């Protein structure tokens, strides 16, 4: 896939500009023809199944480097994890509280004591300790950290995962290419790319997949589909070509195919050896991380796994200790397992929440929201591990050294996947907008 030159890709895909043009011309009724992305996505067959032959044309030519990552895993720490109890400990200072630090495989880099297994993998992990945003509210922060853009009433931006699903071609996928496991919010959206790029939401991989199992036996199910054809034929007679534009029946067919797709077996983490399963930890989050590795093998482009519970306004130290017990084995095992399956270099792992927590410890022994100087971790997929970018103040002052913005980090992630962050998209109302406003942070890339 990566060996395709830019010109090959250009030939395969209609230029994006043409799509925009045709849509501006078509202010023609409220069917899909009316909207730019309705059209793009309907032609690209609802995103999941057929080849994704759109969009990349103009972008790839200017992509700055040979891409390495082809898939993204987001470990979403919902609620806003304390950087001081995870990636940016400050032992022995007034802001540390009881938290200790431990050395890692990389001399000079310490992690909080709750992450011993991750410390063993530190050579593969890059930390950004100087994240700086202006959003200290959960919903707004989540939107920002999921999309790279601050909330804006005139447009809904696509989440990073939706961009991956839309921009990275995948011919084999019968299942959604953007999946959110254990979602704790509704921010994993396709935005202006279209609803068809919304993440497919699923629960603990141990449980049956939601809505994918028919409650009726196969014979009865086939009969029902025949019945449906009868009703659809009546519709077709009445509405003709206009009825077909709803793409309703096509969507039904794709859903039916998905129900029987063998690729869904990727969710069956119970098929993994006990040793592997235990490595990730016996938690829904751990199983989600394991499923993520399997889903990437099945061709999924982005998997988010949520671990909520980091909103530690009360009892921060006890709370984060519990949380890291889940995060540490899962994150570390994911790195090892991706490496063992030769997927690490082609998979980028991002571990973040919506913001960090205050250096000041509040009277309830908790920490409050802190968007000015928090941490995130990156690993795999073209990221140079074993490094730290930025530094926060040991006194808990708000301005970190060498601050990084979300859009710079996200531009870096997109670039590492061969997607040009500056690629111009068009929103449904025809407003041009870049995939990311950020600049690639070269130091982060290998």
């Amino acid at each position: 896939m990566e060996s395709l030159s830019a010109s090959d890709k250009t030939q395969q895909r209609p230029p994006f500009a043409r799509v925009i043009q045709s849509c501006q011309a078509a202010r023609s009724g409220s069917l899909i023809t009316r909207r730019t992305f309705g059209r793009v996505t309907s032609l690209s067959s609802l995103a999941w199944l057929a080849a994704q032959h759109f969009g990349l044309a103009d972008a790839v030519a200017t992509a700055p480097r040979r891409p390495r990552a082809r898939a993204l895993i987001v470990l979403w720490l919902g609620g806003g994890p304390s950087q001081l109890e995870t990636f940016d400990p400050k032992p022995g200072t007034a802001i540390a509280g009881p938290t200790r630090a431990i050395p890692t495989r990389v001399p000079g880099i310490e992690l909080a004591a709750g992450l011993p297994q991750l410390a063993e993998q530190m050579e593969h992990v890059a930390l950004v300790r100087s994240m700086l945003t202006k959003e200290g509210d959960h919903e707004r922060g989540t939107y920002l950290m999921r999309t790279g853009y601050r909330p804006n009433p005139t447009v809904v931006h696509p989440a990073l995962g939706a961009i991956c699903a839309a921009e990275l071609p995948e011919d084999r996928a019968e299942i959604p290419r953007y999946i959110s496991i254990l979602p704790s919010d509704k921010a994993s959206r396709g935005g202006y790319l279209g609803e068809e790029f919304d993440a497919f939401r699923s629960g603990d991989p141990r449980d049956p997949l939601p809505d994918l199992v028919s409650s009726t036996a196969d014979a009865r199910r086939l009969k029902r589909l025949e019945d449906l054809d009868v009703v659809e034929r009546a519709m077709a007679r009445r509405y003709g070509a206009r009825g077909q534009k709803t793409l309703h029946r096509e969507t039904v067919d794709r859903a039916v195919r998905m129900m029987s797709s063998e690729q869904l077996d990727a969710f069956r983490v119970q098929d993994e050896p006990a040793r592997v399963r235990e490595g990730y930890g016996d938690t829904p989050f751990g199983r989600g991380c394991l499923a993520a590795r399997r889903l990437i093998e099945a061709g999924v482009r982005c998997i988010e796994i949520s671990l909520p519970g980091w909103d530690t306004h009360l009892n921060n130290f006890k709370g984060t200790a519990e949380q890291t017990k889940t995060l540490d084995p899962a994150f570390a095992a994911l790195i090892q397992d991706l490496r063992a399956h030769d997927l690490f270099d082609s998979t980028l792992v991002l571990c973040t929440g919506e913001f960090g927590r205050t250096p000041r410890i509040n009277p309830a022994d908790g920490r409050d929201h802190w968007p000015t100087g928090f941490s995130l971790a990156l690993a795999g997929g073209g990221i140079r591990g074993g490094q730290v970018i930025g530094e926060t103040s040991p006194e808990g002052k708000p301005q970190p050294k060498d601050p990084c913005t979300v859009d710079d980090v996200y531009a870096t992630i997109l670039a590492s996947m061969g997607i040009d962050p500056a690629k111009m998209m068009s929103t449904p109302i025809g407003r041009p907008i870049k995939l990311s406003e950020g600049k690639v942070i070269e130091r982060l890339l290998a």
Partner: protein
Amino acid sequence: MQRARCLLWSAGALLGLVAGVAVLALAAQAPGPRAAPPDATVAEAAGRVDQIMQEAWQAAGLEALPPADSMLVARRLYLALCGTLPSLEEMRALEKRPPETRASDHLERLLGDRRFADYFAERLARAFVGTQDGPFLIYRRRRFVYWLSDQLAKSRPYDELVRELLTAEGLWTDQPATNYITAQERDPIRLAARTARAFLGLRIDCAQCHDHPFARWKQRDFQGLAAYFAEVQPTVTGIADRGGEFKVEDRETKEERVVPPAVPFDAGSLGDAARRREHLARWVTSRENPYFAQAIANRVWTLVFGQGLVEPVDDLEADPRVSGVLEVLADDFRAHGYDLRRLIRVIAATRAFGTDSAGAADVSPEQQNLFAAFPLTRLRSEQIAGSLIQISSLRTVDADSHVLVRFFRVLNSSEFVNRYGDAGEEELSVHTGTIPQRLVMMNGKTPRERTEANLVNAAGRIAALAPSDEARVRIAYLVCLSRVPTADEAAHFVERLRGLRAKPRGLAVEDMLWALVNATEFSWNH
């Protein structure tokens, strides 16, 4: 067999059964439409809209389709105003009315129904405060929607309602209108943007960062608007105007400077006001502010048709599909005391609303675009859920039974909406459906429960009580698709039911309902 089991059922269930028989036997007393003398001025206003439409069609060389079947028009009305389908009971009542008043009888009944107030409150709340749950503790969306619903139920004039939203003081608990302020975190910038878009259909916020060379609104327009909200402060008694200035950093001198409140254009004399927000509210709702009435007219039109006269719905400066209609609707709205029900009556009385959605020849995109054919649009998730709730019953699931009312009040946390997906504030833009939506409808819990053949559900009653297989098929179609089956459809499903009794018949009816709710027709307005 059936009867033997009946004896074991509770008395309440038996009563339900009797009611079911009554409906099926067409014997149920029609819930009488509220008698309202037809208002000639409504027809007059609708006639003016028709005239403009007619000219637009002529200019484009288009023919409008003939009027749609009255059951189809009823379906449109129910979906638009209550987010659900008409019940069998309601359709039967409709059939007894003279054809010429069917639509208006229904409309009057719906406008007096609590389902309308609840459903429309949810729709408007999306424009006013969005769909998010907002900052912890301060802002409670649900409280706001209840309040809005109460205002709609008691026919509060829209201009008054908006003035209260813009000026309310106090705690979010006992003054729910203050949630308009708290939902935007008292941020003058967000409030100015929201106010211009929600109430005036103007995207002045595009000028938030800098002037665009060709755009009409300048940065100073936006900043002047924001300054109206600068006095708002949180106090122990809630939101209050305690003074404060809106300051911006001057791009050249890098110094902070105070921006005085200023409206971007004149809309008549506003008089003196003690508080800035009062002044702003007068300007927004002024009779001489042309955008105020047009913005709500376009929003209501879009909710009723699924396709706006101007799109996006909050951008009145975009080109309208048909020029002149919004002006007529806005003039009528102002002239009749900013009465939202009146606005809906006029829109529903237009020829465009009653026009068929399909004709002998294929409908062209241009016909749909200009409302010469009723637009085919996808239903929103809560309309699908509302319809599923209704089809599980033959009788009207209405305010008395609270099911729908409760559903619309807890909409955001509803499991079905969660799985089916919610377009949020973007709800009025058009997309095709998604695969997860199809999966939920085919295999999900809510559709399964609602089409299950048991004693209290419609499916069970159709199976057990309808006089013939032909009647079963006909009733199933009326309940799910608000129409009778075609000859082919009837033949197919009658064959499926032939010779079945008891449980197998119940399962066959379930299968039929499954096919109907998974059909395109169920998920689209037409």
